[in-house]
């Protein structure tokens, strides 16, 4: 029998070396996340998976599971932090859901609904981020980027290319493309790469695909609408 930890009152068994996230997801328990992927190394960037382990706040995707740990995940105060983190991601970029092909199948949008985001909460930064349409098959629209680094890791770890990297610091942090011109069209990215499909938001999208799945039939439409959240100061 393998060891187990307690996730919101439910025992979750784990293998040696597992993170809390890996063990929970394998067992079919959801811990909120945007930057974690089972096939890639952990990051710890989005912080949505912040849980309380034996009374201490930490990210589930970077914390090793230990026998007997008591992990608090979906408590009201932790979800309130998650709501604020999602708001921070929204105000940082330019997220216009109605005009985005990813709408209805977007992890950021899902998180917004899941944690009761009713408005930006803070002033939008409205950064200036030009769209890169140089690649024949792939759009790169960093207006929608949440800096989860999934594309960076997918390109390096699975595609074996290193097309994407992170540059800058602080609020000027941004995704870089490895090519002489800095344009995606001059990079090694192929449409079949994992990095071209892993974006949880609409920052990296295949070209010539619009409304392939009509609004009303997208993944989010199949789920029951969440209840209206309590009105807040937003």
């Amino acid at each position, binding site marked *: 029998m393998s060891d187990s930890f307690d996730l919101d009152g439910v025992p979750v068994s784990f293998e040696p070396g597992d993170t809390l996230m890996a063990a929970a997801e394998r067992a079919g328990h959801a811990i909120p996340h945007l930057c974690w992927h089972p096939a890639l190394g952990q990051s*710890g*960037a*989005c*912080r949505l998976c*912040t849980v309380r382990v034996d009374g201490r*706040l930490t*990210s589930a995707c970077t914390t090793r599971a230990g026998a007997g740990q008591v992990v608090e995940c979906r408590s009201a105060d932790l979800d309130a*932090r998650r709501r*604020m*983190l999602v708001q*921070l*991601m929204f*105000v*940082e970029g330019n997220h216009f859901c109605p005009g985005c092909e990813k709408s209805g199948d977007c992890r950021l949008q899902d998180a917004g609904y899941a944690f009761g985001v009713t408005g930006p909460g*803070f*002033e939008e*930064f409205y950064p200036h981020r030009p769209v890169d349409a140089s690649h024949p098959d792939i759009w790169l629209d960093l207006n929608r980027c*949440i*800096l989860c680094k999934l594309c960076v890791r997918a390109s390096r770890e699975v595609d074996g290319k290193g097309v994407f990297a*992170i540059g*800058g*610091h*602080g*609020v*000027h*942090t941004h995704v870089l493309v490895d090519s002489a011109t800095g344009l995606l069209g001059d990079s090694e990215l192929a449409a079949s790469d994992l990095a071209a499909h892993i974006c949880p938001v609409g920052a990296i999208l295949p070209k010539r695909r619009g409304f392939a799945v009509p609004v009303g039939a997208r993944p989010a439409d199949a789920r029951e609408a969440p209840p209206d959240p309590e009105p807040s*100061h937003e």
Partner: protein
Amino acid sequence: VTVAEVLAEAGAARTQAVQVGGPSGVCLAAHEFGRRIAFDDVPTAGAFMVFDETRDMFEVARGFSHFFAHESCGFCTPCRVGTELVRRRFDKLAQGHGSPFDQAELQALEDLLHGTTHCGLGASATNPLRDTLVRFPQAYASRVSSPHFVPGFDLDAELASARRVTGRDDRGAHLDQHG
């Protein structure tokens, strides 16, 4: 050794506050100068900043907020965006557009950054905010100009381009600022 002893050795006079351990450290007010520089009480890596009574502790905290917004590496969401929002909120208060709403927002960001950031820089980035809010509330209160929310921009000034286009500058083309 107590903070007061360090101040006496240094010849500091009329000291209002001491920042021990750099911007991420602890800010102490005069009534706490009996505390000891020690791992168990006031830990320090050697930094010891002294602010006398002529210094505005709000401006001190605002300076630190700029420092941390610049220092954030941008890796994790709460620090990357949170330090920038704290900086902007401090600047808004400094420009005289402050309200209790802004102060509550600073407090909410403070709560978020303690615990959700990837590393210690983010976790301690709002320490100056936290410490000065508790110890020098009057420095913040003087920045709160209205009990109601005040936008961070001048609504009437934003209409300047529309006035230019229409060639108008009469009273009707301006917002009634007291209405």
